């Protein structure tokens, strides 16, 4: 009796899981087929194979071992694919161009998860440190970085470089920590100027309570106020941030609209789609809406025309379509899916390039050798400008000063290990809810 019962219960759980899997499976297959967001066709680009997974026989000084620490599960999982593709593509291209120190690179991919699941990140970091990786790429969330940083920077010290951290607190926090995401004052400057120059002086900010959101808000508010504007909602110290786990936005939208703003900035992540719905149904003119790098992405599932005229800012000059095509091809080949977002792909790509070139310049794949070469490689010594691994490698090998500039177009690292400058692109949504490049400003 007990036996058959056990069998039944097991069978059921397996069966229900399988049913869910099957049901969801059809959803999955049919969605991945059509993503209007991904423009360039992939057929023209030869896809490179993914770098191998490191094994314990890979020597820590001669093999460049990249540990990735990116959000694969949890509430930031939607930001994973961009960074995964950027880092993966960089490694594949490095391998194609001869590898680091003449050997192919390898990778250990781990999950950083989110702040709700700190044990995942801790396990991943334990694994990466145990494997004595050359450097760690990640995390995307500032909070997650802050959670593991003391482990990473403790003796002997491992280089950690984030493609997406924007928290001010991280500036100059450790000699081992770098980031390729420009300080968000750069973006705020561009965003604030754009809003003011569009004739809007009363700005409502829908901001989520997260270091990313509040830091960008603080900086944007400064620019708006400096130029004679006011922040009618969501200003610093007003307690109007919404929790990052929120799923219904009617009260926030009512509140912001009650302040009669000329323009609204949506300073959020994946909550944005629900916010758009709440704003648009409340009759808000969507063209007076501004997006930020955390949510400037295509919204192919919304009805055409929903976002027409809305604007947004993100790092980088005009996104290079050839670069996007390479990312697409790499992701389809190695991860079996189409990319729907390019968030932090360029920053991850450049981060890996900088690490690899620093290892070449330092003649060793250890963090100790890489760390001192990071600043020069990023251009702090005004070396010869080079734009690809193939172009920079001879300079690095020869010991010449060089300055790598890649698709993220950030400037050299400053003393706080932040990019000293960055280009911010300004984009405008078209009737397909995708966005077009308008202009770029340097900050």
């Amino acid at each position, binding site marked *: 009796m007990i036996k058959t019962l056990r069998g039944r219960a097991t069978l*059921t759980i397996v069966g229900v899981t399988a049913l869910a899997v099957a049901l969801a499976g059809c959803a999955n297959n049919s969605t991945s087929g059509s993503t209007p967001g991904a423009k360039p066709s992939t057929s023209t680009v030869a896809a490179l194979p993914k770098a191998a997974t490191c094994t314990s026989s890979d020597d820590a000084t001669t093999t460049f071992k990249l540990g990735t620490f990116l959000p694969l599960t949890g509430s930031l999982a939607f930001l994973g694919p961009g960074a995964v593709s950027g880092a993966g593509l960089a490694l594949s291209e490095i391998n194609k161009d001869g590898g680091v120190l003449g050997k192919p690179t390898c990778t250990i991919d781990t999950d950083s998860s989110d702040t709700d699941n700190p044990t995942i990140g801790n396990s991943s970091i334990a694994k990466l440190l145990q494997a004595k990786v050359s450097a760690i790429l990640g995390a995307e969330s500032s909070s997650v970085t802050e959670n593991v940083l003391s482990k990473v920077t403790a003796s002997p010290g491992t280089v950690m470089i984030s493609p997406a951290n924007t928290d001010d607190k991280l500036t100059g926090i450790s000699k081992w920590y770098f980031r390729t995401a420009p300080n968000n004052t750069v973006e705020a400057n561009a965003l604030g*100027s754009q809003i003011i120059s569009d004739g809007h002086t009363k700005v409502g900010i829908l901001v989520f309570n997260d270091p990313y959101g509040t830091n960008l808000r603080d900086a944007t508010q400064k620019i708006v106020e400096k130029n004679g504007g006011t922040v009618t909602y969501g200003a610093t110290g007003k307690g109007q941030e*919404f929790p990052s786990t929120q799923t219904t936005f009617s009260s926030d939208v009512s*509140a912001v609209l009650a302040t009669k703003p000329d323009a609204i900035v949506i300073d959020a992540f*994946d909550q944005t789609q629900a916010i758009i719905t709440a704003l648009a149904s409340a009759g808000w003119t969507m063209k007076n809406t501004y997006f930020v790098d955390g949510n400037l992405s295509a919204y192919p599932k919304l009805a055409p025309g929903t976002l027409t005229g809305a604007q947004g800012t993100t790092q980088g000059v005009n*996104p290079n379509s050839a670069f996007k095509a390479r990312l697409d091809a790499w992701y389809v080949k190695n991860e079996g899916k189409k990319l729907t977002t390019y968030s932090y792909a360029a920053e991850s790509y450049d981060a890996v390039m900088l690490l690899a070139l620093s290892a070449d310049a330092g003649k060793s794949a250890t963090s100790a050798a890489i760390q001192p070469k990071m600043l020069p490689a990023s251009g702090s010594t005004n070396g010869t400008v080079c734009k690809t691994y193939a172009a920079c490698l001879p300079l690095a090998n020869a010991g010449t000063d060089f300055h790598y500039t890649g698709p993220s177009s950030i400037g050299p690292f400053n003393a706080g290990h932040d990019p000293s400058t960055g280009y911010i692109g300004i984009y405008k949504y078209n009737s397909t809810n995708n966005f077009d490049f308008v202009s770029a400003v340097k900050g």
Partner: protein
Amino acid sequence: MHFSRLSRSRSGSKKWVLPTLVALLLAFLATFIPVGATASAAVPTCSPDATTACVRGTLLDDDSNAVAKVSVTLTPPTGPEETEVTGSTGQWVFSVHEKGQYKVSVDTSTLPKGLKLAVASKTLTVALSSLAPAAFDITGSQTSDGHVVQQSATSLYLLRVWQQFASGLRLGLLIALASIGLSLVYGTTGLSNFAHAEQVTLGGMLGFTFAGVLGLNLIVASVITVILCALTGYLQDKFIWGPLRKRGLGLNQLMIVTIGLSIALEYTYQYFYGGQPVAMTGIIQQNTGPLYMTPISYLSMAIAVVVLVAVGLFLLKTRIGRATRAVSDNRALAAASGIDVDRIIRLVWIISTGLAGLAGVLYSLVQGGMQWSTGLQLLLLMFAAVTLGGLGTAFGALVGSMIIGVVVEMSNLVLSADLKYATALVILILVLLVRPQGILGRRERIG
């Protein structure tokens, strides 16, 4: 009725296919155009680069309408003045190639009648490869002969209060729809089902699968979704909860089994649907009436009310409904009375998951999407609602849900917006301190 309007516009959306394709093509081509040479020629353009900065602004009136044909003059630190007339977008822009202090002034004599400008000139510090914005605050409106009907701050605030109250009712009804099942299952089996939230998510996910992916009509998709969700309740009870009840697994253990199930389901959704929200329809409806409420919101609230009344009548007036209450009251006695408790419980599971699925569908339609974690975020609100109203009483769940919904949606009128959920939970704890059995609960259940 609203559904049919929606579905008509869905099928009508084929009209968009051609323009969409054209726009896509254009967008694709546009990416090949080098920086700075964007295609829009009608508006004067300026792109900052190493040798260029843009001084720019837009003249808008109080209604955010562009103010055209106004002369704007730029006085550089050295060299001749430049003057430009705003176009149909109200925008003016000057490209400059030297950093320094620039003065921008608006020729007030060219302003349309009724419009006023407090400060007519501004001095800007301009750096190269950047955008120097200048805002001129124009008062008055062009459409209403310069007479602006401004709503007073008080009436705006009152409107907001009503607005948020209405949103609260809407949220409360949806939570009620979702949590009555939780309450019924709790009442009849004693199980606190932590996976109930994932049943709500399932509604949104299946709704997306049928409407968003397979393109079925919204009504059809919703009906199929609710039926499938109810089916999951049947299967769960038949193969998991029923046998475990029979085996006498403790309630605490069972509760932890539901936590396991909820973890498994959350990540199953994430695995297949990804991390971002998925919506059943991309069409965003406009609000109707004085409040920000879309037709679908009204419809959802109506459906919720009808279903809740139906469930209430079922429980109060029908033989099976009374038997359900009897099982909630006293399972052993119900069995001793000849009621087939297992069948009642199975029925309760079916109703519970079906209602949760319906709640998920409506939630997804009203809020514009459903994410793998949406249910999870609602779970505590649902538990709070059920406990507040009185554990195991269906009507209590309704009352509790309405309170929780209104509190969540209105708390930001007085408290920090990020304390919404905390406020609801504080109220829960306060009520339990005074009345542990909940608002409609009975004292004998709690000891």
